[in-house]
């Protein structure tokens, strides 16, 4: 194949394969495998069977009665919180472990920040009986020790990353380094719609089951399509998973919520789409938080799963084209969103999707004319209860609850 620009590996000007030459061969191998296997009927059958018999799909589409009343439109929640391990992350992990298995890779590596993706990967590795190494920043390891222990229970080795800010982006870099070194027997199980082609496409396709089910369930429950779709955006996999099957229909409005952290002006946020220019990190071009010299900035959010300075290239493209509306919401309002949904619907959301509820509780009009809206409830909040309590100044572990 003579050297040339591959239009189909990009989304508009975003995406691509911005990687050292060493990675081109493994990416080519992965692309081949992805194209050969992933679309095959047999693979799809296995994928469907496992997400159903192991992870509990389809996840429900819950009509949120009190929320609908409060936001003055029909709100439906796509319940990714009900997946095994508690978030949409497992969909992708299942898809990729199946692919790795087809590629005869016995060693799986992954990066993780909060540990959600790490737990998902450790889970499928246990289920498929494969070696599992999860790279995790040393700082995150300290902050998320519970998830570290979960991964270990699941048989994974958690490898502390001591470089850079010692958080997710550094863990990602370290995973890439491992992959470059051990491509022969190793699959790099990337956790979101970021990274070089084919990852953004592949992860989106595995997550698209969210949107496919939603489409069907919404039709069954209402006889029509929703007119608005909302998701929180970290790397963007839960958003793209929901949006994907609806992209054709230009009348459906897409809304994304980023993390404003301590406030956009404070610089301590995680909102590249709202605040930043274009950039290249971890193999693809997108929006990226970086300074004038191109050094990547350390993101911040109360939701560890949104703590990434970049964003999936397809979302960058959707935003650039005006198809995707994006807003960012601050930590304190996120905590309100967390409590708002819990009390209203009996569903404690993860802090990541709590961004959506925090924003809507404050600005319901953002949804404009949309009358039937699906929100992707990407994960459950059990993992965050301790942190929220702390944020509110309550020390649960001191056992101070009894009067």
């Amino acid at each position, binding site marked *: 194949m003579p050297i040339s620009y591959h239009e189909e590996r990009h989304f508009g000007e975003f995406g691509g394969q911005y990687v050292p030459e060493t990675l081109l061969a493994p990416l080519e191998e992965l692309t081949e495998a992805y194209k050969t296997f992933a679309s095959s009927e047999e693979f799809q059958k296995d994928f469907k069977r496992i997400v159903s018999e192991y992870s509990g799909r389809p996840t429900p589409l819950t009509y949120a009665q009190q929320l609908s009343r409060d936001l003055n439109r029909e709100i439906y929640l796509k319940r990714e919180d009900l997946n095994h391990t508690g978030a949409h992350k497992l969909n992708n992990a299942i898809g990729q472990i199946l692919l790795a298995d087809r590629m005869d890779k016995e060693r799986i590596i992954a990066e993780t920040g909060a540990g959600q993706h790490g737990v998902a990967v450790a889970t499928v590795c246990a289920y498929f009986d494969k070696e599992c190494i999860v790279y995790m920043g040393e700082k995150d390891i300290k902050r998320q020790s519970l998830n570290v222990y979960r991964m270990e229970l699941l048989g994974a080795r958690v490898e502390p990353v001591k470089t850079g800010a010692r958080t997710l982006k550094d863990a990602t870099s370290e995973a890439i380094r491992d992959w470059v070194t051990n491509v022969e027997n190793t699959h790099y199980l990337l956790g979101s719609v970021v990274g070089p082609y084919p990852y953004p496409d592949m992860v989106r396709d595995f997550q698209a089951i969210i949107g496919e089910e939603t489409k069907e369930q919404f039709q069954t429950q209402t006889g029509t399509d929703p007119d608005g779709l909302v998701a929180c955006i970290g790397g963007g996999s839960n958003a793209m998973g929901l949006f994907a099957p609806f992209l054709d229909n230009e009348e459906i409005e897409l809304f994304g919520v980023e993390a404003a952290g301590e406030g956009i002006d404070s610089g301590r946020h995680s909102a590249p789409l709202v605040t930043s220019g274009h950039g290249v990190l971890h193999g693809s071009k997108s929006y990226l938080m970086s300074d004038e*010299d*191109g050094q990547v900035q350390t993101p911040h959010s109360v939701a560890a799963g949104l703590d990434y300075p970049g964003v999936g290239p397809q979302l960058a493209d959707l935003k650039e084209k005006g198809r995707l509306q994006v807003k960012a919401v601050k930590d304190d309002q996120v905590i309100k969103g967390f409590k708002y949904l819990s009390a209203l619907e009996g569903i404690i959301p993860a802090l990541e999707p709590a961004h959506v509820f925090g924003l809507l509780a404050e600005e319901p009009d953002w949804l404009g004319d949309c009358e039937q809206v699906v929100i992707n409830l990407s994960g459950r909040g059990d993992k965050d209860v301790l942190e929220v309590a702390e944020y509110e100044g309550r020390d649960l572990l001191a056992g101070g609850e009894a009067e």
Partner: protein
Amino acid sequence: MNRLKKVFKKRLEAGQKLFLPYLCAGDPDLETSRELVLTVDENGADVLEYGFPFSDPVADGPTVQKAGLRSFDSGVSLTKVFATVSDLRSETELPLVMMTYYNPVLKRGEDWFLEHTSEAGFDAILVVDLPPEEGLEFYQRAADYELETILLATPTTPPERVRELSQLATGFIYYVMVTGVTGARTGYDTKLAERLQVAREACEIPLVAGFGVSNYEMIAPYLDYVDGVVTGSALIQKIEDNLGEPDKIKSEVEQFVRNLAEPLHS
């Protein structure tokens, strides 16, 4: 003919190999780093790959990463690197390669970056994570700013691709001798010689090899197939081992460069 082209011509015509050390700009601090450029020049380096550090260097191992951190700690910035190089040009004609990642380029704008790199006195540019598929125009445009371009090849790069890369690049092909990241190693894959030979045959411009080279002995078996040798981590290790003692650093670097340059030039 620019400095880089000239030195390759000179050495190759003399039947000699080139020695191309890698240093990270600003490591261990801006002043020492500036002096180290002169040190390597005076001790036999033919070309210096001068890295502008990036916050997320996925292709680099711990030694180079730590060099970058030291560099950030010393307050490195593009402006300062350009100023230093500009200033150095009154003292040295050593060909300099701007080696970096793509985000610093993109952020300033490709043209801005090429223009300033060239104006500061660099002779070539190597962008680690910009393969030609993504950077065709960029690499072509470099010529407008009188910068040579350098592309990477690896043991898994098929010969046809090596040929194409060498048709695109103007400076040389940097052959990465291992899969993996930068970092000193103890030896190479048994098939390396064979692969290098194939690459050498396909390559239409000079080909230099690197990644993991700690000393002359390691590279000696492959000298038939390469025009030059790069060393990075092993050299940088001398800095790391002697932090706080700039004179020791200089003498160690001096020794290290000599130890490689002399046999390569003989």
